């Protein structure tokens, strides 16, 4: 090896481990590290299985894949404490699995089944698990950003020490409600952590064609709101954990918001309907991310070098996740669709809890429902 390549190799190793010594990473046990790795693999296998099922016509609507971005959800969510909450946009499968939702309930939701996490009422873009402090799953670009603010506001109001991780895309940062939220967050010292998942595109529009921003990055806009910000390499789980931990600590302890921008990439199109995605970006660009910045490969390398993981385990984790995903398809396939009567439940708390409420009168206004056979003159 020439000294030059030796230097390069040393540099690369340094980069990989640059954040390994951050307290939140140093305190990880081997078991916890393997769990983080496994969670990323599970997300990828789940989505690969979902993609196959989509192509077989098993689900309707959109399917926005998270593949390529796994370290962001897994890294950030792994830092959550009992009073921390999360909310995200429609590219929400990764976050769902990372908070501990099962593949079964997620796959069943994609299939529109009654056993889905939202009983088949939400679909791919609208996963929810408030019992895991996961508040969705939101389809309107930027629409979730004030909601995350409100969740964090409620924590502060109740005197709880926690924060709300609120995710959005690089395309969402130009929405008015997001800017209103940044202003309110800083003005009122609300413990919200905004995380821009910058995968460089909003559908077919590259980030450079959509956003005016300071040279240092999208997150630098935070300065206008007197808010701390940071940029994060989304291919390195250690870096994500190290930098997100700083933001979460600040939120919990000082009740100050922060804006993080995590550089990442999606390997597939915007959604599966986006067959054009190789036209607005080059093959070389996609391959560069897949070959050199893949978050799963990067963390695998780290763990192998740390001696935490070996090739054998990698294979096993892979096949176990594949099996789990396969089983979730079976579960979804075998589950029933919701009965049509489900259309009228979960609309109002009041109708779902009859007799417990100060409501009278008519709630729904169909003269006749599709399942009412009897004609009423």
């Amino acid at each position, binding site marked *: 090896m020439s000294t030059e390549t030796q230097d390069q190799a040393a540099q690369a190793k340094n980069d990989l481990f640059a954040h390994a010594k951050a307290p939140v990473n140093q305190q990880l046990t081997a078991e916890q590290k393997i769990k983080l790795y496994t969670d990323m693999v599970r997300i990828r296998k789940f989505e690969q299985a979902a993609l196959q099922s989509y192509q077989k016509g098993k689900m309707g609507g959109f399917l926005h894949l998270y593949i390529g971005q796994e370290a962001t959800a897994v890294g950030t969510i792994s830092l959550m404490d009992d009073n921390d909450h999360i909310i995200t946009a429609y590219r929400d499968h990764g976050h769902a699995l990372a908070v501990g939702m099962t593949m079964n309930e997620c796959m069943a939701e994609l299939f529109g089944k009654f056993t889905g996490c*939202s009983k088949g009422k939400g679909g791919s873009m609208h996963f929810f*698990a408030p019992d895991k402090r996961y508040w969705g799953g939101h389809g309107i670009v930027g629409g979730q*950003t004030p*909601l995350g603010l*409100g969740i964090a506001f409620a924590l502060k109001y109740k005197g709880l020490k926690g924060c709300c991780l609120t995710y959005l895309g690089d395309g969402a940062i130009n929405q008015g409600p997001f800017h*209103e939220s940044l202003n309110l967050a800083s003005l009122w010292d609300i413990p919200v952590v905004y995380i821009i998942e910058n995968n460089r595109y909003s559908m077919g529009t590259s980030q450079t064609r959509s956003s005016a921003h300071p040279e240092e990055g999208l997150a630098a806009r935070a300065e206008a709101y007197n808010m701390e910000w940071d940029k994060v390499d989304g291919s390195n789980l250690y870096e994500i954990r190290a930098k997100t931990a700083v933001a979460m600590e600040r939120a919990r302890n000082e009740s100050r918001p922060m804006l993080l921008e995590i550089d990442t990439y999606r390997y597939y199109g915007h959604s599966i309907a986006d067959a054009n995605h190789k036209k607005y970006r080059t093959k070389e660009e996609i391959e560069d991310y897949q070959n050199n910045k893949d978050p799963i490969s990067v963390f695998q390398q780290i763990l192998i070098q740390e001696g935490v993981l070996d090739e054998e385990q990698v294979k096993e984790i892979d096949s176990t996740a594949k099996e789990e995903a396969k089983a979730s398809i079976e579960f979804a396939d075998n589950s029933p669709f919701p009965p049509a009567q489900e259309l009228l439940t979960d609309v109002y708390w009041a109708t779902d809890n009859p007799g417990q409420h100060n*409501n*009278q*009168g008519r709630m729904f206004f169909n003269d006749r429902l599709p399942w009412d056979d009897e004609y009423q003159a």
Partner: protein
Amino acid sequence: MAVITYRQAIKDALAEEITRDENVFVMGEEVAQYNGAYKVTEGLWTRFGDKRLVDAPISEAGFIGLAIGSAMMGLRPVVEMMFFSFVYVAWDQAVNNASSVRYMSGGQINVPLVIRGPANGGTNVGATHSHTPENLVANFPGLKVVCPATPADAKGLMKSAIRDNDPVFVMESTVLYGEEGEVPDDEDFIIPLGKADVKRKGKDLSIIAHGRSVLMALQAAEELKEKHNIDAEVVDLRSIRPLDEETIIESVKKTGRALLVEENKPYSGVGAQISHLIQRRCFDYLDAPVHRLSAVDAPAFYSPPVEKVQLPEAPLIIRETLDMLNVKR
């Protein structure tokens, strides 16, 4: 029973509910230190402080969204719209998020949110400030909307709305804020959502209205009785969604005639829905077609004398009634 203004009745409702439940807080522009643009919250900040009365910057999408997020967490925000016309800048939050979160989560979440404020024309502030969006809100399953006409209804419905576990829009009227009326003193006086009120009994026709139009209808009914010996029944809907259909049907079956009055625009207005209900459920009882009075179908006019013509007031209700009953004017 004390005689108080509509404004005072709402303020009392807010104060009582803030005292009763630590999760209730009021948020909006100028609600705290400035005492409210229309003085509905006057004195509450001094009494309850910064936590319970929150002055927000002009950022409706931001703070309505914030309120929804906090309601998902179990707080009970009462958001004041300085004018209801301003809700449109937050439409995605107010109707899309507030109405869908429960449904899309399969019933795992509820949103105990109140959005309240004046929604009325008639104050010469032009088209941007004179909207009455109760029909628009009622079009969203998941939302509830009420339009109180009297101080007692304002108080009772407001307290119900705050205690409700679903998002409720309470549409008030700046024209009514100074109106006085008897209001029960009982702190647990509430009026259920979805219950109409027959404000005047009669046998010749049913005038069905909500909001300020109820007062116009009552005024018209007095004159109809005095000058023409016509006995109009006045049904105040109070609640638009949920809707008390049975009271409407009972009244129309009794009188055989229905005149629907509202300050909203006609196309897809509340009257359109009521009219459908009446033809569907009272067809054989009708002695005349259902008539509707709404605002003249144009954006709100500024010029004071013209705007007065635009909204249906008592003389117009009288004219319509006489024509319906084939009485010579």
